[in-house]
């Protein structure tokens, strides 16, 4: 499905009544207050392709120190994200293990019906509909949030169908830890993962990042820490497709791939190249655009989302594009002693498998303006 087809699909009226009329003038005119500073949040990625469960990270802010209290995979809820209003009746409730029982949860959701795209303000305000930045809006059954992309007329739109947001808001029941404080699309959640990166901050927030997610690969350009360009690489796909192709190429099960990709004695380049090269080509185009049109010049690109084989991507990028890729430790500079004590240091070594979960938690803990 092309981007345009997806857009057309999502702009069609869904037909079921809205549970919350976010488009009422009083709501649209007044931005929703941001969350006040949360200090203990568990970020969870729903709908990831990982067979081990939902990646989860419990993040705690103690004064100026970030603490990764728990990492791991939690069993998914006993029910699927609804695909229509009709399916909303079967509302499961979800309990997280005690290690992840923070007061609040930030959910990063992979949904077939999600909308995450760079678009224009004009397209969203067609027909004179008011648009609120930084707070939920509603259009044709879709609940979405928009954020400015720099000084341009482009905006970043992230949204889910109304019925899915409702379902997610009730997934974690009241009176038990955690309850949902934040619901984002997974691609929106990943944008916050660079906020604590020293290299990102050293460059004053001027950076480019390549996010390889389960379903797609995204390029995000940052200026002064804020996204100014958001692109989904067309036709490239994401980790699911890549790992499937790698497994076929190597002739092995997917669960063995991480070991193989990290094995220094094995050269997976012939098998990896057909998968990585299209990504690199798109990367080159995106970097050009970022530099020429938006004036952001970067000397490295953050490679996010790969739990293994990053050194191959780095080499291929240098060889092909002379572009330096860096795959930072997601939890760089954070206190992970609690995870090590729990015996999860192996999970910590592949920190990018928790990218969405971490990004969701980090975004939810952002201090309100």
């Amino acid at each position, binding site marked *: 499905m092309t981007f345009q087809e997806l857009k057309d699909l999502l702009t069609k009226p869904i037909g079921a009544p809205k549970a919350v009329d976010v488009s009422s003038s009083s709501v649209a005119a007044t931005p929703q207050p941001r969350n006040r500073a949360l200090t203990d949040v568990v970020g969870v990625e729903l709908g990831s392709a990982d067979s081990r469960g939902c990646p989860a990270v419990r993040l705690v802010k103690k004064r100026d120190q970030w603490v990764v209290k728990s990492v791991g995979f939690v069993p998914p809820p006993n029910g699927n994200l609804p695909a229509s209003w009709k399916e909303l009746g079967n*509302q*499961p*409730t979800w309990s997280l293990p005690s290690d992840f029982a923070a007061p609040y949860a930030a959910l990063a959701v992979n949904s077939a019906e999600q909308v995450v795209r760079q678009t224009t303000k004009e397209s969203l305000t067609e027909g004179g509909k008011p648009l609120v930045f930084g707070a939920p809006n509603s259009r044709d059954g879709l609940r979405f949030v928009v954020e400015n992309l720099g000084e341009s007329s482009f905006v970043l739109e992230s949204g889910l169908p109304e019925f899915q947001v409702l379902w997610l808001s*009730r997934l974690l*029941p*009241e009176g038990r830890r955690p309850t949902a404080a934040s619901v984002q699309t997974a691609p929106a959640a990943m944008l916050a993962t660079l906020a604590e990166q020293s290299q990102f901050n050293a460059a004053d927030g001027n950076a480019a990042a390549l996010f390889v997610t389960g379903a797609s690969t995204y390029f995000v350009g940052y200026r002064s820490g804020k996204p100014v360009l958001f692109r989904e690489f067309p036709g490239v796909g994401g980790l699911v497709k890549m790992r499937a192709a790698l497994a076929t190429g190597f002739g092995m099960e997917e669960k063995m791939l991480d070991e193989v990709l990290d094995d220094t004695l094995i050269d997976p380049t012939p098998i990896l190249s057909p998968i990585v090269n299209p990504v690199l080509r798109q990367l080159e185009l995106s970097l050009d655009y970022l530099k020429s049109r938006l004036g952001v010049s970067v000397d490295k690109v953050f490679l996010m989302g790969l739990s293994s084989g990053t050194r191959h991507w780095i080499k291929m990028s240098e060889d092909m594009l002379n572009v330096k890729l860096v795959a930072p430790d997601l939890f760089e500079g954070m206190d992970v002693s609690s995870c090590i004590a729990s015996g999860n240091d192996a999970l910590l070594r592949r920190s990018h498998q928790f990218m969405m979960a971490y990004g969701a938690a980090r975004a939810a803990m952002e201090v309100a303006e």
Partner: protein
Amino acid sequence: MKQRNPMILLPLFGAAALGVYFALVQPCSDQLGKDRKALDSLRSETAKRKIAIQSRSSIEDRMKQIEAELRQFSELQLEPLLESYAMRAKSIVGAFATEAGLVDAEFSDRPVRALPVLPGRPVPAALHARRPIMVSCYGDYAAIVSFILRVERDLPHVTLGGLRIQPGGGQNPMLQRAEIILEWPAKGAEKK
């Protein structure tokens, strides 16, 4: 699992609590109050009865004592002589008058006087009274006084209820006329 709003239980429980209070607790409490009052009343009644029954023997003893004293008193009472109290009095003190030197002693009845019966107190089983008898006589002052002293000594239950001594008139200036009223205890009127 579907989540229900627990607030729905608030009016249910609240209404049920009110219902239980007004339909069950309050009537029960009222009844208990009545029972308690009845109980207190019965307890005091049984205690009172117990005391009354236990004190029977002491009351009987006291009754005997009273009756003995009343018998003694009744012996002092003036009884009529052939339906005449004056004649009875004459039979008792006539000789005293003569021996004292009083002459022409005449005994007559005076209106009987009831003894006090105070309100708010038990009414006596039998009423008692004062039976005054007037002794009109002549004699000198010493004789009169001597007679009165004799009566007071020999009949201590008889008391002087009135007296009038004045000159007797006639040729003997020493002779006084005396109207001496002597009071005896007597039976009172029959209670109606």
